[in-house]
């Protein structure tokens, strides 16, 4: 029962899980990430594709919307939210 | 208590199906099979069953397969043109080992042919109608009484062998009305579907135990995959494995072939000392029986072999029968179908002659008797 307490805006942050060997490099997750946190990696997976990776400078920018996991045709990526500053 | 009814073959087949436990019928109107659908529409709601008239025979056949996997005993009924359309999903029924009964009330063909008149030209189609290697069981009744009795057997065999069973009637049997004795319910033998009882992780939906695999119907929790593609024991597609293809074809064929003797149902009449045998089935079988009686009155050693099961063809039976028979006369309302099978089965031990009717009429007993007489006189 704390609705009268002034709450600070939540700092939502999420972890990105990548199953590299499932990726077929369609590029959907990279293109359509609303935060632009993904890019093509240089490594090859076992199928010969380049799986996505987080942009180094943007590791904290994922908001966990999960759109990448929704539009991945290969079940190769998903996110899990990690909520910070919740009790501030 | 037994009941006496005055039923046509179509009605008797519908009532027999219900007695065998059929609770789902999907069909499309076609002469001379429509009476079965009409009677099912009337009766199934009373028996807590489901009747649905589909948009065509392709859909009717697909719907009964779906309902069979849904757990019901199922049936459809049609005639030649519709039977041709059903072949597609009879193949699916064969490869997915789905119990179902398809009544084909034969009329004269090909194509639209003679819709209201008799034919027996679907013998080969009932066995070979769908593409690829498979086996079916084909049963042919000669009377309304047999339509009732044998369709119960058709349902039982469908469950026992997990196979589409073709109930090959003909227009005359379907439309004639006769006395039918309906035995009391407890006297009717009904085979129930073999379902799995093992835990899901141990269950292989297409791995035979004895002859067939127990069949998990939808919703039992086995989460099976059923496909018309070549599949392994687990039901998974294996579309590039020649080994799996061989295993699967051997299984769906051998489960029938190796049980031919058990499936076989033949009426023999005056065969003990016969030298001339008339081979027939369905309505033609009744003329043939009358012809044999006439022949016997004239002192000719003739007998009748009436096939109640046509497929799997009783090759072994005919090979043995040929040891004592000089001549087989095959009386059928087509231009030579069962005749080919008789010829093939007896390996030249006796001569085989076709007595065809081309559709639209049944042989008269005298026509068949005259053929017997000719045979006796060595023509």
């Amino acid at each position: 029962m704390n609705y009268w307490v002034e709450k600070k805006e939540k700092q939502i942050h999420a972890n990105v899980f990548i199953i590299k060997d499932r990726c077929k490099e369609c590029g959907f997750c990279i293109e359509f990430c609303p935060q632009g946190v993904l890019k093509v990696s240089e490594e090859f997976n076992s199928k010969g594709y380049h799986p996505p990776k987080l942009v180094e400078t943007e590791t904290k920018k994922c908001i966990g919307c999960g759109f990448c996991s929704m539009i991945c045709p290969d079940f190769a990526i998903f996110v899990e939210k990690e909520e910070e500053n919740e009790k501030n | 208590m037994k009941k006496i009814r005055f039923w046509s073959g179509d009605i008797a087949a519908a009532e027999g199906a219900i007695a065998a436990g059929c609770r789902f019928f999907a069909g499309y109107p076609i002469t001379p099979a429509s009476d079965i659908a009409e009677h099912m529409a009337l009766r199934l709601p009373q028996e807590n069953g489901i009747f649905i008239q589909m948009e065509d025979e392709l859909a009717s056949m697909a719907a009964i397969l779906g309902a069979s996997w849904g757990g019901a005993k199922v049936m459809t009924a049609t005639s030649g043109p519709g039977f041709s359309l059903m072949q597609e999903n009879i193949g699916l029924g064969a490869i997915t080992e789905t119990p179902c009964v398809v009544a084909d009330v034969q009329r004269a063909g090909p194509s639209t042919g003679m819709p209201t008149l008799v034919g027996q030209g679907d013998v080969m189609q009932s066995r070979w109608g769908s593409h690829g290697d498979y086996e079916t069981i084909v049963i042919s009744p000669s009377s309304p009484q047999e339509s009732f009795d044998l369709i119960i057997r058709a349902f039982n065999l469908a469950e026992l062998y997990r196979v589409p069973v073709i109930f090959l009637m003909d227009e005359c049997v379907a439309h004639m009305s006769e006395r039918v004795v309906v035995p009391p319910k407890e006297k009717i033998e009904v085979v129930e579907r073999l379902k799995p009882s093992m835990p899901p992780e141990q269950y292989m939906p297409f791995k035979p135990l004895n002859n067939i695999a127990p069949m998990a119907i939808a919703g039992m929790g086995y989460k099976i995959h059923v496909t018309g593609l070549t599949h392994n024991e687990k039901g998974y597609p294996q579309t590039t494995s020649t080994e799996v293809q061989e295993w699967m074809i051997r299984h769906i064929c051998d489960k029938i072939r190796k049980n031919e003797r058990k499936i076989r149902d033949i009426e023999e009449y005056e065969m003990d000392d016969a030298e001339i045998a008339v081979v027939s089935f369905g309505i033609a079988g009744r003329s043939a029986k009358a012809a044999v009686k006439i022949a016997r009155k004239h002192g000719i050693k003739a007998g009748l072999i009436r096939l109640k099961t046509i497929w799997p063809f009783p090759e072994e039976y005919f090979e043995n029968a040929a040891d004592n028979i000089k001549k087989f006369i095959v009386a059928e309302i087509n231009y030579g179908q069962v005749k080919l099978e008789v010829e093939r089965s007896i390996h030249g031990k006796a001569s085989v002659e076709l007595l065809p009717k081309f559709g639209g009429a049944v042989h008269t007993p005298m026509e068949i008797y005259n053929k017997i007489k000719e045979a006796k006189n060595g023509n």
Partner: protein
Amino acid sequence: MEIEAEANPMDKYLRADRIPHIWCPGCGLGIVLNAFLHAIDELKIDMDELAIVSGIGCTGRIAGYINCDSYHTTHGRAIPFATGLRLANPEMKVVVISGDGDLFAIGGNHFIHAARRNIDITVIGVNNYNYGMTGGQLGPTTPLGARTTTSPYGNVEHPFNLCHVAHASGAVYVARWTVLHAVRLKNSIKEAMNKNGFSFIEVIAACPTTYGRRNKMPTGLDEMKYYREHSIIRHGIDPSQANIEIGKDIIVGKFIDIEKPTYSDAFEELKKRVKK
């Protein structure tokens, strides 16, 4: 943070031993499967009470990947098979997932009649504008002018507007999304599956290998970008106004959501009357 993973939370709904699936890179079918699994996850559907029926073609393979009772039937006959299954086993939720050619060319007659009867099933029709599995032939939804292997000079046939067909045939729920609208698609699948009666969702999906390549959109990404630029959401619009034409906007949204008695409802009523 980026974490390397071995499994996806959706894997529990998949037949793990059948993954990876057969679909090409950039194909939209994986997204349809993904949206469907998210929908059943959110609906908390008991997988023992779910049956998937499909026909033949690339989309037809979906049935085999979902870990429930699944039936991969003959070409065009998924709907009548599903009709029999649903009527004989009313405990089951029955979903048909199949392609445009399967559902609307060879199976078109079954679609309209199941909709007319209001059979209680959900049909997800994946429209990729062509027959993908057989190599990219002309289909009933190929847009006018599009090039396929059997319309090498451009298609001269008018395509079906699937949502209009569904509406005209009597479907109680009709929606269209592209695979880019994955979240809305998921929500639509949830709505459709909760609907009593014949519900239909058309999903426009990329087929880069056999369609896109011949129509100036050689990658799945090209097609997805096209959807981003050219789709307009118009809920409640008359589906007859939502034709799909090359170079024009794709109208998506929930078009129809009505109530009427299903075949099963009516048949149960009939049985009660008969037994009295």
